[in-house]
């Protein structure tokens, strides 16, 4: 039983990163209809940006996060200009294919600039004011502060996203776009700006996840491949375009993986998620939390 709680905690930590990456992915799909296969690369760039900020520029943690967000914003703007702006009047396959191209280009750019060897962010938690005072033992559960930071940051970021979507003009614009692009435009929503904001938000969430995880795991040029696949799993489970669904499904996937590797076999952990996706697509194609909508 003691171990069960530890497995759950491990699952929540890893699930939190899935949430951060998947929420951005589902936003971009839900609002703009772009299936972004380069989303894992946003995560990878966030990880490298964090390493550059802390190891090379020697910034403290908060400015380092600001640096990662800045880089993510630039990446988001560029990705929008490549994947959405020229493609929005084309078939959806155009943006899918160009997002694959962007993923390959970004991976190779990382290979040239940062090299093939894995790298790690040495985040000294003892220098982070609030975090260093947090406990690491919760009864039978042990979570180092670097890991504890991840679910905390996820909850904060998702809360901020919720408030923005719910109460701000920009958020209303985003939601309006998701419901009906033409009507939103008629109502005065600046569609071009919404597209850019969406991409920036997606890149910022994935980039923050990348930065947080690079202090626990490693970053290397193709690290985004598996993350992107996991994020797609989460998005499908949660219902395409459903932000709350992605948050719940992300945690569920993390916990399922953790329990699989604990009680069945570690080799099966990646298989389980994909089996779920196939089952969901067969029996509940709108996702676990999606509403079935008849398109007119």
């Amino acid at each position, binding site marked *: 039983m003691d*171990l069960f709680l*530890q497995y759950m905690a491990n699952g929540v*930590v890893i699930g939190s990163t899935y949430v951060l990456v998947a929420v951005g992915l589902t936003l971009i799909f839900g609002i703009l209809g772009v299936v972004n296969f380069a989303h894992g690369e946003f995560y990878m760039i966030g990880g490298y940006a964090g390493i550059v900020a802390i190891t090379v520029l020697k910034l403290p943690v908060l400015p380092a996060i600001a640096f990662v967000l800045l880089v993510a914003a630039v990446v988001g703007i560029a990705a929008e200009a490549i994947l959405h702006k020229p493609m929005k009047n084309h078939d959806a396959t155009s943006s899918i294919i160009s997002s694959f191209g962007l993923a390959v280009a970004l991976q190779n750019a990382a290979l040239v600039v940062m090299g093939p060897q*894995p790298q*790690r962010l040495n985040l000294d938690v003892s220098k982070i004011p609030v975090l260093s005072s947090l406990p690491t033992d919760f009864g039978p559960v042990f979570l180092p502060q670097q890991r504890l930071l991840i679910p905390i940051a996820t909850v904060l970021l998702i809360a901020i996203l919720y408030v923005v979507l719910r109460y701000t003009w920009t958020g209303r614009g985003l939601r309006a776009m998701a419901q009906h692009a033409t009507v939103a435009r008629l109502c005065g929503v600046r569609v071009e700006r919404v597209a850019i904001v969406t991409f920036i938000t997606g890149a910022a969430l994935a980039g923050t996840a990348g930065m947080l995880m690079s202090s626990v795991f490693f970053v290397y040029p193709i690290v985004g491949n598996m993350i992107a696949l996991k994020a797609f799993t989460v998005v499908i489970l949660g219902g395409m375009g459903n932000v709350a669904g992605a948050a719940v499904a992300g945690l569920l996937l993390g916990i399922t993986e953790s*329990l699989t590797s604990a009680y069945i076999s570690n080799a099966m952990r990646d298989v389980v998620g994909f089996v779920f996706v196939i089952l969901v697509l067969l029996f509940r194609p709108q996702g676990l939390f999606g509403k079935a909508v008849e398109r007119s």
Partner: protein
Amino acid sequence: MTQFSRRHMLAVMGASVAAPSVLRAQSSDPIRLGGMLPLSGPASIEGRQILSGVQFAIEEANAKGGVLGRRIELVMEDDESNSTKGVTAVRRLIEREKSPFIVGTYASAVAIAASKIAAEYKVAMLSGGSTAAGATDQNTPGDPWFFRSWPDSNAQGDDTARAIVEKFKKTRVAIIHDNTNYGVTLAAQVTRVVSGVGGTILSTDSYNAGEQDFSSMLTKLRSLRPEAVYIGGWAGDGANIVRQAVEAGIRTQFVGSGSMNSDDFIRLAGPASEGFAVASLYEPSTPNPVGKAFGERFRARHNLDANTLSALGFESMTIGIEALRRVGKPDGLEIQKMLKGGMKDFQLVQGPAGTTAAFNAKGSVDFPNFIAVVKDGKRRLDV
């Protein structure tokens, strides 16, 4: 008629002026020796370290007056760890550069493909890092064309597994391996050897290469209380596992596959790598006096410690040059014969004291691997 004779005269005069210099050119032109390594692409980091050893061997030979009275010039080809490129590189080194032997290469698949071609041309190859048993197993026993002056991957796995029980006295062993051919083969071998020398395998877990989160697998492993954990896989994954194991509270003897004999592993794993054990062919702290002297000369020249890779690059090139010197002419077939039987007195920098280039029928040199242990962020042989 007069015109012809004048031209004739000129030709004769020209020839008489040119002839001595043509003769001289044959004896004082540098002799070109070929090497092929992955200098770009996925294994370029390893390739460049091996190259530094190869270059060092040439520098030292030239400082002693070269070979056969001629200066040595190194001709490098980049095979990019690609078999097609490797085959082209070998052809170019033999046909155009007339290299009497070739040092190369790192990736075993490329070495196997390239050495088949080299054998057709009757030119011997000396491994540039390839350790797979397959590369020497494809040689015709008794007539090898691919030579490797250190033991193969099977021997490395055997020595490592044996050390868990015999050197570290740990009998309750857990195995973690990746799902590649490399990891699966090693796991099977370690299971066989450890059980054979009286150890027990508590559990075997596998993971996909490049997987990031091992926390739950390691939490489960901790409850089994293994005395030693063997990891078979790539260095990056191994470092990740060792780090997360310490986080999960596992305090035990970690032993890794040969791929984890790298400074990158120690850098990535950080303090968690203390006590980690891995098979090694060469360390600057080697008890082998020839190897120690090489390490000191290398350090003086590069201000950098020699490692397994630079040592083996140095070794292969030095053996080739020595065989060429003993044969007395750049003749591929004669050099192969010399390597087969004539180098048994030539002392190596790799392996324990007294190791010599006594190639066996398959073209490999047998000696026990060192088991290096990480202490204070460095692999050491004396702990």
